């Protein structure tokens, strides 16, 4: 039996078809294609998860399909620069990371201040000025922040319980002592390392160096890596390596390797972005689902919050993009407060602090409060400049020399200063 609602629906459909006449039988116009160069996390944050597909209404409204070309971190930036430098590019929108960009690439992208003046992102001022500054060169805003990746301290609660530890370390010195305590062989023969870190760039070691009051390059482009505080931090890392608290192959570890270490229970603690919580606790891949907790990094030696490393991924429109108006409309959509909340629910690090106050975020993301706390004092790995990638490589090279015992920490860091200083902007 047909209900009244169904009958009305059928009738209205028939009337609509009659009104459209011959057009109703014509094939629908093929959807346009919109190409985005991004990392897989950006695609996931924008389209997949409890927050839903943020891009869906935009795609429908513009009759456009989005083609997401996703690559690894380095390759995303490389591909973005390459596409943007062509006479005729295929990318409509690209995601770039603060430490891979620099003033030399500013000419490849639209100055988004112009677009913001023409068609403003609502409440743009909420996005922290520091994040916008990470993608601004010579007064030009080359990209709009989309995601931050801020470090927290992840720890295996089962191992903590085994060793009688009740909670995360309170200070950096507590963390070092705890890492030593948590380096042991389990009953099943598995070697547990107290601390695991990736050394493919300075992002993870810099947290500990800053915890000791040191730094690498300050925001006003001064190399301070040879300061006594920095050298103390480096010496601490060397000591942990010598004692076997850090795995033997630490200098060879990348982000994915650290994830495997944590999932397999080979690492007791790591400082990595908060949202790795999802990977470390993934029941399909982890031997410890639900047992890897995350907190803000411990306090530094000065008793203040240890400045966690943060990175800012941002959306840029290549100057050779075919339809910049359309590109901007998507940037605008992805940057609204409601979108930021949905993206946070999908696992993004929100660039709008108000997203942390949303009830849905609080309910679904267990680390929301800790991440917000960490973000307040977070710093970029290095400020953006033309030779940032080379400078970071030099730092990692000399840190490796110190850890291997080829050089004393002070000598290695003095060498970093000597080699990096000529590369800084004058």
């Amino acid at each position, binding site marked *: 039996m047909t209900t009244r609602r169904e009958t009305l629906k059928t009738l209205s459909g028939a009337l609509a078809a009659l009104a459209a006449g011959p057009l109703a039988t014509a094939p629908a116009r093929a959807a346009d294609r919109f190409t985005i160069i991004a990392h897989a996390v950006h695609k996931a944050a924008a389209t997949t998860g409890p927050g839903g597909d943020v891009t869906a209404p935009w795609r429908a409204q513009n009759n456009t399909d989005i083609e997401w070309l996703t690559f690894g971190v380095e390759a995303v930036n*490389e591909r973005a620069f390459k596409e943007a430098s062509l006479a005729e590019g295929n990318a409509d929108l690209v995601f770039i990371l603060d430490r891979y960009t620099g003033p030399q690439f500013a000419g490849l992208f639209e100055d988004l201040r112009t677009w913001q003046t023409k068609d403003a992102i609502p409440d743009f001022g909420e996005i922290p000025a520091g994040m916008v500054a990470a993608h601004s060169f010579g007064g030009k805003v080359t990209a709009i922040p989309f995601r931050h990746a801020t470090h927290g301290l992840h720890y295996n609660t089962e191992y903590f319980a085994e060793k009688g530890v009740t909670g995360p370390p309170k200070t950096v010195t507590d963390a070092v002592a705890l890492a030593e305590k948590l380096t042991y062989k389990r009953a099943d023969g598995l070697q547990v390392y107290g601390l695991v870190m990736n050394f493919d760039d300075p992002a993870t070691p810099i947290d500990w160096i800053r915890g000791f009051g040191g730094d690498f390059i300050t925001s006003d482009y001064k190399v301070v890596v040879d300061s006594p505080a920095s050298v103390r931090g480096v010496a601490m890392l060397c000591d942990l390596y010598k004692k076997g608290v850090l795995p033997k192959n630490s200098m060879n570890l990348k982000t994915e390797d650290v994830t495997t270490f944590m999932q397999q229970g080979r690492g007791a603690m790591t400082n990595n972005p908060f949202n790795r919580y999802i990977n470390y606790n993934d029941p399909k891949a982890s031997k410890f689902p639900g047992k890897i907790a995350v907190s803000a990094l411990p306090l530094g030696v000065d008793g203040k919050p240890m400045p966690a490393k943060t990175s800012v991924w941002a959306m840029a429109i290549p100057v050779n993009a075919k339809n910049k108006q359309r590109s901007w409309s998507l940037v605008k959509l992805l940057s609204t407060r409601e979108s930021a909340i949905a993206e946070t629910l999908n696992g993004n690090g929100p660039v709008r602090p108000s997203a942390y106050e949303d009830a849905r975020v609080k309910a679904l993301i267990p680390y929301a409060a800790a991440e917000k706390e960490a973000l307040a004092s977070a710093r970029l790995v290095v400020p953006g400049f033309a030779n940032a990638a080379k400078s970071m490589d030099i730092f990692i090279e000399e840190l490796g020399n110190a850890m291997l015992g080829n050089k004393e920490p002070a000598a290695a860091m003095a060498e970093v200063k000597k080699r990096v200083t000529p590369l800084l902007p004058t």
Partner: protein
Amino acid sequence: MTEAGRRRAGDRRAVRWFHYAMTGPALGLLLAFLVLPAVYVAWLSTTASTYGQPARFVGLDNYAHLAADPIFWRAFWNTFFVVNGIVYVELALGLGLAVLLTGPMPFKAAIVAVILDPSATTESSGIVMWRYMLEPDVGLVTQWMEHAGLPTLEWSTNPIATLLLASVIAVWHHLPFTFLILYSALTTVPQDVLEAAEIDGASRWQAFWRVTLRLIMPAILIAVLFRYIFAIRTFAEVWLLTEGGPARLSEVLAIYLYRETFKYHEFGMASATGFVMLAMSLVIALPYLKQMYREAARGP
């Protein structure tokens, strides 16, 4: 000039034009796809060039910078030792196996299939497999060695061990190439020549050294030359193991070039590095090419 002489000269001119017409397309392709890009890279090596900025002529500054960079020299010597190790170990193994297999041997086809097997494996998969087998703590081979009380290969911390492992992987993967060339050359050595040597009183070693080896020398030269040229570009083995680490101590020239191109986006420096690699290939290849021409001129 006589009528006959004029006709012969005309024929020669016609033949020459015919040759040019026939070889022209191939030469055109070489020009378009090899010479012109090489000229472009040569020009690029004299510029400071990156994305989004016009190339700026800097003369030989990039080469001077390379010459003054200790990391470049380390990469150069690492490449030199790795390449020579790979090529000669492969040659020795390939020749040894080829000689063994040209004699009577059971399950010959199966053994040849096993030797050829690595070449059917995707390079990156093969390298990752080796890496996981020798991973510190958890690698299968590492665990066996630890159980047997043997020292483990510290390839993640010791650059010499890294380069040694990279060389072993390269030999494993490319041995089939050398083996196939030498094996097929050995199967074409005429038996009557070897029998004549035997009748003349040559021992088996003398027959091999003085007859077989001489006859397959062109094949050996080709195998060595090709492997040198490919081995100079060794990249994946080291990159997938350590990316040239720790502390860039196991870096080879191809990784140095990769960093300049894809990490630092300094295309002038990258092109200069590429040209140094090309020069290195030429210097190595020249004596072999000369020898090959000599062999060819001497005839069979």
